[in-house]
């Protein structure tokens, strides 16, 4: 069968037969196969741990950004209430950037989560197959002559070999994904270090460069919209400053 399916089958099978060809003595083939299988299982565990680590790192960044979004929003309101539209705009630009990053981080966290689930399920399946293989290999070693054993084990070894090759593929994909996430996490960290998400109380006098870059990065229209919305909200409060709102109807 040519095509997607055919190509995959051919690649996987050629690898397995190469593995089987390496050993001449069936007993050795069996033990070697079993050893390779358990090694792979260890690698899978490491792979899963890697995915979890990357996920945690992204989750930490995500909650940090979430706090920053709230803070910047509050500051924009305060700045506007004090008539500092320039500061309010800066805060909103930063908030927008943080929100965009936040969305993409959350998306990636979800992807890593499903990756983790899939690998865990694969690991359990392979563990079961390896156990099955171990039982079979002991029976075959004990009961059959070398020639017979070679034939008998071929099928089982191919079955478990295919499982191994397939898991290898799943691991490869998970690693690629994790690698992309790492790059992403580093990019966010760089922005963070450059002060792109700093709140406006931390702004010194020398921040013009970041601000210029930020206004290029974020959509001006969106910031304008948000700014006028905020103005309207503040305006509808009428009759002055916010503390007045706090004196509600019911007092304890």
């Amino acid at each position, binding site marked *: *069968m*040519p*095509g*997607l*399916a*055919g*190509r*995959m*089958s051919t*690649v*996987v*099978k050629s*690898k397995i037969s190469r593995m089987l060809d390496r050993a001449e003595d069936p007993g050795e083939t069996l033990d070697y196969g079993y050893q390779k299988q358990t090694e792979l299982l260890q690698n899978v565990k490491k792979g899963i741990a890697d995915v979890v680590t990357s996920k945690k790192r992204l989750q930490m960044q995500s909650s940090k950004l979430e706090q920053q979004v709230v803070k910047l929003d509050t500051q924009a309101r305060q700045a506007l209430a004090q008539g500092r539209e320039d500061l309010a705009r800066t805060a909103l630009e930063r908030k927008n950037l943080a929100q965009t990053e936040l969305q993409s981080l959350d998306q990636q966290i979800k992807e890593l989560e499903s990756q983790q689930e*899939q690998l865990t399920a*694969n690991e359990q*399946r392979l563990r*079961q*197959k390896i156990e*099955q*293989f171990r039982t*079979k290999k002991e029976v075959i070693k004990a009961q059959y002559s070398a020639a017979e054993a070679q034939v008998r084990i071929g*099928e*089982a070894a*191919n*079955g*478990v070999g*295919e499982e191994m*090759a*397939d898991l*290898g*593929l*799943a691991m*490869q*994909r998970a690693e690629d994904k994790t690698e992309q996430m790492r790059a992403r996490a580093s990019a966010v960290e760089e922005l963070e270090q450059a002060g792109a998400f700093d709140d406006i109380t931390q702004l010194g006098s020398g921040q013009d460069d970041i601000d210029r870059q930020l206004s290029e990065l974020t959509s001006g229209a969106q910031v304008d919209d948000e700014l006028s919305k905020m103005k309207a909200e503040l305006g509808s409060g009428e009759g002055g400053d916010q503390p007045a709102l706090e004196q509600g109807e019911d007092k304890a």
Partner: protein
Amino acid sequence: MIVRISGEGQFRLPDEDADRLNELDNRAVSAVEEGDETGFQELWSQMLELVSSDGNAIDGDELVESDVILPPRDITFEEARGEFTGDGLIPD
């Protein structure tokens, strides 16, 4: 006929499905070659659908070789393209 969906496991399908699967596969390959992503996704989900509607999952205790190995369910168009250039999904 035994079909593996990579990353998921094996399924036993009636032999009659081989032709249908083969046909879908060939069309999927042409779609990839023509750069037709929508067409590819459509055919790919038909292939998966065929396996899940006609196939029975094979027990974890059974050690059998597959007749056909399908790529992972969430294969991207880019990855599918890679199958025809380079090393395929499993590099040497």
